[in-house]
């Protein structure tokens, strides 16, 4: 009983500590902490995060977190759904065990190892092969002429600027690899929870396998799939080490995915133990508090959705 209640206590304690420790920056900067910035009088460039002069605004970290998570979802969601469909509906029985074991292993690798791999394998790969391909597409005269009005192509577009390898794109890709197994395994779970009679009904009406999957499986499981995607998003938002190792760690905002940045979690990991002033530390804790609240909301929502689907159905039938 007390042990179980301690879980409430832990959440309350974490929240209370975060709120208390971030008082300093909350009182000084208030809500504008998350959207304002200063302008450097000499260069006329925005200054967000300036520990030396004690001015802290968190906008670039919000931007970095959102962009990397979005890129990650963009890559991971179609792949994860594809894998889940393959595993539940198409896979020969002898492959099913090893494949689901592999996806489980992927979830068990610590994020620092993902980061290590990303530094030495993924980043060179992106820099030498993947990014030049996209730069070629995005800065070709045809695309500039056709889509120039969107501001997303050309030299200051999504793939403009210096191609370092490090940056938002690399962080997004490694996040995608990390959240894939979570989304895939949960999607698989909600798909297996779809009753067999639904599938059989669709097949009996003469549907091909794909039509059966589309009409019977995906449509019935869609709420659970959305829930598992949100759960993956929650993981991506809070992921720290792998992102801190590849994102480049600069508190700036650029449109290009190739530029370096910072996410909410990575700035805490990088600067917390070296924070020079109480204000600096307090500002970092306030970012942590924001991260805590956002992930609680996101996770709570996702759990409710997944529960709503799997609770009413009978135990898994394989």
């Amino acid at each position, binding site marked *: 009983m007390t042990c179980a209640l301690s879980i409430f206590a832990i*959440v309350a304690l974490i929240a209370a*500590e975060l709120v208390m420790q971030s008082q300093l920056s909350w009182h000084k900067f208030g809500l504008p902490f998350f959207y304002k910035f200063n302008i450097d009088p000499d260069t006329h460039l925005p200054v967000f995060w300036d520990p030396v002069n004690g001015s802290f605004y968190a906008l670039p970290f919000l931007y970095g977190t959102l962009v990397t998570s979005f890129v990650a979802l963009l890559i991971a969601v179609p792949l994860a759904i594809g894998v889940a469909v393959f595993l539940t509906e198409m896979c020969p029985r002898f492959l099913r065990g090893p494949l689901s074991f592999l996806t489980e292993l992927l979830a068990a690798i610590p994020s620092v190892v993902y980061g290590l791999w990303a530094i030495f394998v993924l980043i060179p790969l992106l820099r030498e092969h993947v990014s030049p391909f996209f730069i070629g597409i995005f800065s070709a005269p045809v695309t500039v002429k056709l889509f120039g009005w969107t501001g997303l192509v050309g030299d200051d577009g999504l793939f403009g600027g210096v191609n370092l390898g490090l940056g938002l794109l690399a962080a997004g890709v490694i996040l995608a690899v990390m959240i894939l197994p979570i989304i895939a395994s949960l999607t698989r779970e909600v798909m297996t929870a779809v009753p067999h009679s639904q599938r059989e009904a669709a097949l009996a009406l003469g549907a091909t396998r794909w039509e059966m999957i589309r009409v019977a499986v995906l449509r019935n499981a869609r709420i659970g799939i959305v829930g598992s995607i949100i759960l993956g998003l929650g993981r991506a938002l809070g992921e720290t080490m792998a992102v801190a190792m590849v994102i480049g760690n600069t508190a700036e905002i650029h449109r290009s995915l190739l530029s370096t940045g910072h996410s909410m979690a990575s700035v805490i990991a990088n600067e917390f133990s070296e924070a020079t002033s109480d204000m600096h530390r307090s500002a970092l804790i306030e970012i942590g508090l924001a991260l805590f609240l956002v992930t609680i909301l996101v996770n709570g929502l996702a759990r409710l959705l997944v529960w709503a689907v799997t609770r009413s159905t009978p135990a898994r039938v394989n």
Partner: protein
Amino acid sequence: MKARNQENRLRSSMRKLADHVATGLAILATVLVVTPLIAIFGYLIYKGASSLNLAFFTQIPKPEGEVGGGMANAIVGSGVLLAVASLLGVPVGIGGGIYLAEFGRGTRLANAIRFTADVLNGVPSIVMGIAAYSLVVVPMHHYSAFAGGVALGIMMIPTVTRTTEEMLLMVPNSIREAALGLGVPNWRSVLSITLKTASPGVITGCMLAFARVAGETAPLIFTALGNQFWSVSLNREISALPLQIYIYAISPYDDQHRLAWAGALVLIALIVVSVSLVRYVASRGILKGAS
């Protein structure tokens, strides 16, 4: 009539085509997902195995830029941190699981606790680090192994609670009823009948939580801080395997990269062994003690 036939045939072949395309895409997605996994493992084993040697397990890190040295202190440090974490996380987690499965089953409070545990599971580890920092480091005025252990221990609790609950729920009711029918008090039945029956499953659940926090770096950066020297004191900064991998991975020296790969291989081996163990025990069924 003929035109209609032709139209029907066209439609049916389009549907077949869509079916094949979808199948192909699903297979492609699976291949794309499996490839990075094999790439990561292959590269890790290739790099790690060529970097592993005896010195890695016996020596402490050399100063920056010097060749050689090992991570002995980090391995021991990880052991100390995980011991503190388990002492905190396992009893509380198992207690919580027992409550959820045995005493509070179906009550609104139990549902709320289960939900909170799931949500707590998703809270980023770095936030746990901040919490441990302000709970332990700030009052003590210095970084310590104890603070790192507390951070990891808090992270273990929700996982252990949920797996314990799931394992206890798999114990058949007839066993409980038999114990109660013999006049055993409820708490006694829970501890020495139900929990004992489910113990292989509960232990594997603890191993799973253990494996998960063994790889955590983020909460250690500003609680355990890391240490270049031998230390087993709970009151001092301590090194840990993932922390040392992180420090070496972002360093500019080739020899430290080599050590980082070796460390990653050791860490992965630890985790893969425990996860496979969990799977093996889970597939054998947890109720060996019952028969």
